[in-house]
């Protein structure tokens, strides 16, 4: 996997292509456009146009009495002072800070183990670890909702063996960990596959050379494997960051089981959904979505900026 995200092409390449572009004959340009065309149309129709429309909507306010009025950035000003939005955003940020390291450690550990073991059991394990990702998030959340149940889930029986009562993972105190477990279960296998693929791409002669130099297995892992798959680690980190900040499916499903714990403003995405479809406030819903998009963009940018420095330090 090449490191497209963290490396910018050297400036001379850019210059060359720009100069070269002017020389491409019109006919070839046309052919290029024809190839790009279908994607371009779909991109415009299903990404750019809805985004533009949502941005347009977010600049208005519609009240039950008094109708629609243009408020420019008023909805954004409201969102960034709205405790519901801010609390939800703070929750997903905290959640990411705990979830992402846990998820990465687990998937990295599994990938390293599977990389070392080459038996048919490893192949089976790989499939099994990946399996949760193949289960739709909605079904996964429903299933965990039942597993967490004190009355008929396995927790009650397990804790009963020790004479304790099962914890309620959908209660106010524990819902953070309950969700943490669901999301890790769902995604760790997928990240594991990405890391595993990256590990497979490492030239085995490096290990041989290291072993000749007297490196232990641990040293090979820490000094060769992990540094060489850093690009893949950065990639899954960005995936996880974007995914977690947009947290929606799991809490929305579990809301049916624990409406008192998981409110409609539990995460910013859920809040936007509730504003738009529950309360008919599409304008504010759009504004929250855009504000959330801004938060995600800033977080990812900060992260990439930080890892770019570290990437150069590592090499």
């Amino acid at each position, binding site marked *: 996997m090449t490191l497209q995200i963290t490396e910018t092409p050297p400036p001379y390449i850019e210059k060359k292509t720009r100069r070269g572009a002017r020389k491409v004959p019109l006919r070839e340009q046309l052919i290029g456009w024809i190839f790009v065309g279908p994607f371009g149309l779909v991109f415009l129709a299903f990404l750019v146009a809805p985004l533009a429309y949502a941005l347009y909507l977010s600049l208005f306010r519609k009240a039950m009495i008094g109708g629609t009025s243009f408020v420019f950035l008023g909805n954004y000003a409201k969102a960034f002072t709205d405790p519901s939005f801010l609390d939800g955003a703070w929750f997903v940020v905290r959640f990411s800070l705990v979830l992402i390291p846990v998820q990465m450690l687990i998937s990295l550990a599994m990938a390293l183990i599977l990389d070392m073991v080459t038996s048919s059991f490893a192949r089976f394990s790989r499939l099994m670890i990946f399996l949760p990702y193949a289960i739709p998030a909605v*079904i996964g959340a429903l299933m965990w909702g039942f597993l967490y149940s004190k*009355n*008929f889930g396995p927790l009650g029986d397990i804790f009963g063996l020790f004479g304790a009562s099962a914890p309620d993972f959908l209660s106010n105190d524990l819902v953070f960990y309950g969700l943490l477990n669901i999301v890790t279960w769902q995604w760790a296998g997928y990240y594991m596959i990405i890391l595993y693929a990256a590990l497979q791409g490492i030239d085995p002669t490096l290990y041989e050379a290291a072993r000749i130099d007297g490196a232990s297995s641990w040293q090979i892992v820490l000094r060769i494997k992990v540094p060489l798959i850093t690009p893949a680690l950065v990639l899954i980190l960005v995936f996880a960051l974007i995914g977690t900040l947009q947290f929606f499916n799991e809490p929305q499903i579990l809301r*049916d089981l624990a409406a008192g714990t998981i409110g409609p403003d539990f995460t910013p995405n859920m809040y936007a959904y509730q504003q738009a479809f*529950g*309360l008919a406030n599409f304008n504010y819903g759009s504004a929250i979505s855009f504000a959330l998009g801004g938060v995600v963009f800033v977080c990812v940018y900060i992260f990439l900026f930080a890892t770019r420095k570290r990437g150069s330090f590592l090499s």
Partner: protein
Amino acid sequence: MKRKPFLAAATALVLAGTLAACSSGDDDTSSSDGGSGGGGSDASSCTNTIPKTDLPAVTLWAWYPNMELVVDNFNEQNDEVQVCWTNVGQGGDEYEKFQTAIAAGTGAPDVIMIEADRIPTFQIQEALVDISDYGYEDVRDNYSEGAWKDVSVGDAVYGVPVDGGPMGMIYRKDIFDQYGITPPTTWAEYEQAAQTVRDAGGPLFGDLGANVPAVMMALQIQKGADPFSYDTADPENIGIELNDQASKDVLDYWGGLVEKGLVGTQDQFTPEYISGVINGDYATYISAAWAPGYLTGAGVGEGADSGQFAVAPLPQWDPANPVQVNWGGSAFSVTSQATDPELAAKVAFGIYADEASLTDGWTNQVIFPLNLNALEDPAFADLAVEFFGGQQANKEVYVPAANAYGGFTYSPLQQYYYDAMTEQLAAVNQGSIAGSEAADALHDDVVGYAEEQGFTVQ
């Protein structure tokens, strides 16, 4: 693991899966209807099979459990119009889809099942049609004044009533016998009985679920609260009174029961709660007349606990002046996106109004009918309800409750109010605030929202 809760869980899982399937499947309904502005001539999107394909079809969204039979009955008997029915989900799920269709200006059905408390919310968005000119006079005598009041805003009528939800106290006979208590008639007795059962090491006496704010609203109204005053003749003004003494008293009462550990705090309608009901974890269930149908559908009252349930009138604050309240109940409304409102109104008036459908509804306790032909039928009053072990529940509890019910004024803020109430009830359940504080917080929250929506709050 006991077998029954597991079975109930499995059933609920399947149900939940079906609902998920419904909510993803409705997309093709709305998109196929999209072009014709909601006029459903596309028979492929119907759940039912239309027998008379040469007749015009009217699209309908509804979630009554026996809807399939009701639609078939209507289509068979009618030679003028046919119904194309889809179940797009219950309650909130359906309203979200309708809300989207309203905003899009397309995709709504011609006729839609709505609970009475949501009518003002959609009426203020001009999403519903006034049906008073479309045959209202012909069927007016089939329903009581109160029933019409619930579906009217001012002089305009926005729905055809089908069922109501007079409230009562469902209880476990075995638990009451075991602890030697009789059904409480006042809320003070209710608390006493709960204490007796608890002191003897018995189960919880009831449940305060944060996700059923409509129950709390009804119980507050029973004490004398008057949450909203609203009239479309004067749409800019709204009266909001959520923290008066009556509201605070009721919230403090229930908050106190929670604090003393007398009632549970589990969300209702969840598999967890239902398995608790099956297990006998709750001695009472404060609920409406449609509850037996819901509970039976979820597997309650079968096997070992069949015949264990009975119902008594709702406990009162002042037994000298009893007040009866309502939870739920719904109507059929014609949407403003209907291609032919007159034809749609014919469906709204006719569907679930024939004898066969109504009888099926009340014998299976799926609905509590508001149609007087059914309500005044002696067979209805005398029905020995199987769920209640043969008790004549209608005669003893629900019919008197329905007759004494005075009607509510619902507001266009209902969804926001329920969400905010859920949040406050959750806080009360966690013991972080007292009931009266919750009432104050709720009041400020809803007033703020109303002002933001352009209302002048009085």
